C-alpha cells in the first residue's frame, strides 16, 4: 500500500478525483431521478450516455475537428458537440421510456420484470452500437473487433492555475464548473418551477398527484428527458477529457454512477452530486494506494458497504421518501 504517494500528492489526487467524480455525478443524477419517481434502476441510462459520446464523435467528424483548433472554432465545436450530445441522449432516454417502460407500467408489471427489461434494453443498445461499429469501420464486419473510437483532443490539457502545489488543469476546471452549473440548474428547476413540483408530487404520491391534475405520463417523460440531457453534458465532458469512446463505455461508468447515487442517497439530487464526487475521490485514492487496477473493485466495495450500513445513503432519501 503506497501511502507515501497518496499523502505526498494528496491535493493533486483529490483534485483528480473530484474531476472524475463530477462526471459520475452528472450521470448519477439520471439514475436518481428515475429511481426516485419510478423505483426503477434504469440500466439503460448507461447506454444513453454512450449514445451521447457517439453523437459528439459524429458531429466533430462532420465538422472536421482537429487537435487544438483556434478559439472561435473551438467554441463552435463545443456548442455543436453539446447540442448533439444532449439531443441524442435525451432522445434515447425518452425513446426507451416510450417503447419499453411505458408498456410495462400499463401492465402494472412487478419490479423484477422492469429490471430485466431495462437490462435487455441496455444490452440491445450497446450491442447495436458494437455491431454497427464493427461493420461500419471494418467493412465486412468479420470477427468481433469492437473498436475504440478516437476523437481529436480539441482542448489541450494545460494547467490553468495552481493552489499550493496542486495543479488544476483547464479541462478539470471546465468539468467542475459544468457539473456545478447543471446541478444548480436542476435544483432550481425541481424546487422552483411548477414542472419540478409535479416531479416531486409524482415521486411522493402518484395517485394523489394525478387527482390534483398532474399528468403523470408527462412528468415521467420529463424526468427521463432531464436525465438524458445531463448524460449528454457528461458525454461531452467525457469526450473532452478522455478523447475516445467505445460501445461498452457505458457499462462500468453506469455501475459506478449508480453506486454514487446510492452513496449519496437514492432519489436525492444533492446526494447524487456528493456521491459522485466522493466516489471519484475514493477511486483515485484506491488506485494510488494499490498501484494497480483494483480501482473498479473500490466502487463495488463502497456500494456494498453503504448498502450494509446506511442503505439510505449519506444524505438520506429524498424526492420520493422511498421505503420498501
Amino acid at each position, binding site marked *: 500500500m503506497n501511502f507515501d504517494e497518496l499523502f505526498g500528492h494528496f491535493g493533486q489526487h483529490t483534485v483528480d478525483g473530484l474531476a472524475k467524480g463530477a462526471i459520475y455525478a452528472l450521470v448519477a443524477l439520471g439514475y436518481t431521478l428515475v429511481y426516485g419517481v419510478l423505483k426503477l434502476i434504469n440500466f439503460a441510462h448507461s447506454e444513453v450516455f454512450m449514445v451521447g459520446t457517439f453523437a459528439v464523435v459524429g458531429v466533430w467528424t462532420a465538422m472536421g475537428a482537429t487537435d487544438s483548433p483556434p478559439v472561435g472554432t473551438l467554441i463552435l465545436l463545443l456548442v455543436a458537440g453539446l447540442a448533439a450530445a444532449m439531443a441524442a441522449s435525451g432522445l434515447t432516454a425518452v425513446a426507451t421510456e416510450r417503447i419499453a417502460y411505458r408498456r*410495462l407500467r*400499463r*401492465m*402494472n*408489471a412487478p419490479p423484477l420484470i422492469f429490471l*430485466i427489461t431495462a437490462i435487455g434494453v441496455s*444490452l*440491445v443498445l450497446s450491442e447495436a452500437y458494437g455491431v454497427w461499429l464493427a461493420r461500419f469501420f471494418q467493412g465486412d464486419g468479420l470477427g468481433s473487433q469492437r473498436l475504440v473510437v478516437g476523437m481529436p483532443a480539441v482542448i489541450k490539457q494545460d494547467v490553468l492555475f495552481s493552489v499550493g502545489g496542486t495543479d488544476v488543469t483547464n479541462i478539470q476546471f471546465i468539468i467542475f464548473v459544468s457539473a456545478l452549473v447543471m446541478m444548480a440548474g436542476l435544483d432550481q428547476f425541481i424546487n422552483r418551477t411548477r414542472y419540478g413540483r409535479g416531479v416531486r408530487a409524482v415521486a411522493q404520491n402518484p395517485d394523489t398527484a394525478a387527482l390534483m391534475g398532474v399528468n403523470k405520463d408527462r412528468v415521467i417523460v420529463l424526468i427521463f428527458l432531464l436525465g438524458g440531457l445531463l448524460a449528454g453534458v457528461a458525454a461531452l465532458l467525457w469526450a473532452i477529457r478522455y478523447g475516445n469512446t467505445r460501445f461498452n463505455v457505458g457499462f462500468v461508468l453506469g455501475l459506478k454512477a449508480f453506486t454514487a447515487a446510492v452513496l449519496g442517497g437514492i432519489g436525492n439530487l444533492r446526494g447524487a452530486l456528493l456521491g459522485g464526487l466522493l466516489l471519484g475521490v475514493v477511486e483515485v485514492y484506491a488506485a494510488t494506494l494499490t498501484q494497480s487496477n483494483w480501482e473498479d*473493485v473500490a466502487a463495488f466495495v463502497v*456500494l456494498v458497504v453503504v448498502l450494509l450500513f446506511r442503505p439510505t445513503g449519506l444524505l438520506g432519501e429524498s424526492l420520493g421518501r422511498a421505503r420498501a
Partner: protein
Amino acid sequence: MMEIIRSWNDRRRDLAGGVGDRWRALPRWQRAVAFVAFVGFLYYLPLLGIPGLTWLRTDYVPGGNNWAGVLFVCAVYVLVAIGLNVVVGLAGLLDLGYVGFFAIGAYSVALFGSTQSPVVKALQNQLGLPQDWAVAWAVCLPLAIALTMISGVILGWPTLRLRGDYLAIVTLGFGEIIRIVARNSSWTGGPQGIAGIPGPQGAPSADNDIFGFIDVKPWYWLALTVVLAMVFGVRRLEQSRVGRAWLAIREDEDAAGVMGVSGFKYKLWAFAMGAALGGLSGFVFASRFNFIDPTQFNPQLSILFVAMVVVGGAGNMAGVALGAFLLAYLPERFRGFEEYRNLVFGLALVLVMLIRPQGLIPSRRRARELEDRAKEAPANV
C-alpha cells in the same frame, strides 16, 4: 403415501401452465413412461445420425464430432438454469452475478486439481509433494460445492435484507469482483488463466480413453446425469415444506413471517443452494475444457443466465431448461451470426418481457400473478 402425493401433485397439476395442461391431464403411469422415454432419448441424442434429422445438428459434416460438444454445453447451461431458477423463480430474488458462482466452481477444480495451478504448486512446496500431485478430481467436487455455498452465504447474509433492486446491483458487483480478483491475483493464475484441469480420469493426457479430448459423448452423459440428479433434488424440495415456505414468502413475506416462516432463513437457503448448483456447473464445465481464464466469466454471461431463466419461464423447471437449451443451442446453430449474438439476446429479453413476461413455459402461478397485476393496474398509470 399415495394420496398425499396424488393430492399434492393434483394441485400442482391444476396449477401447471398452458402447454403443461395436456401433459398433466394424462394418467400418472403414462406420464412416468413418457418421462422415461424422454430421458432415454436424451441419452441417445449424441448418437443421432438419422439423415433426415441432421439439420438439427450444428455440424454439417456427416458423422461430424461437434454435436456432442454442443449438447454438453447445453447440458451445463441447463444445470445453471435449474440452479438460478431456485434463486429467481422459487425464492423470487434477482441475482445478476450468478456467473460468480459458476466461476468459483470452475476455479475450485482448477486451483486444486491442476498441477499447473499456483495453489497446488504452493502446496507441493510446503508439503514436499511430488510435481505431479494435485487434489483428486473427485475430491474437488465437494470442495467446489462447499466453496460456492460458503460464498453464497457470505454474499447473501448481509444483502438479502435489501430491496430487490439493490440486491440485483450488489450481486452484479459480486460477479464483477470475482472476475477482477481472478484477473488480478497471481494465486488464480492472473489473466492467463489455468490449464491442465483434470477430468474424472485424472489430469488431461492422451491416455484418458473415456473422458478424453476426442470423444465428447461421455462428457455429455456425465453432465446429463448430473442434471437429472439435480432436477430430482430440486423437485423434492419444491414438494416439501421448503417449497411451501418459498411460495409463501414470494406471495406475502410479512404474512408468512407472522405464520412462523422465517423469510431470511429460507431465502438464504435458496441462495446457498442456487450457488452450489452454479458451482457444480462451473466444475463440470472446467473439467471438460481443461482450461479457464477470467474473460470467460463476464457480466454478459450473467445476463445470459438470467435471460435463460426468465425467457424460459421463471419458477418452472421445464421452462428454464427449455430457455437454457435454446439460448445455448441457437447460437451454435447459426454460427455465422456470431456477432449478433448478444444483440439477439437483448432483443429476446425485451420482447419476451413486453409480450409474454411469464416466459415460454410459465409456471401457472406466475402467469396468473402477472394477469392479476395487469387487471389491478390503476387507470391513470
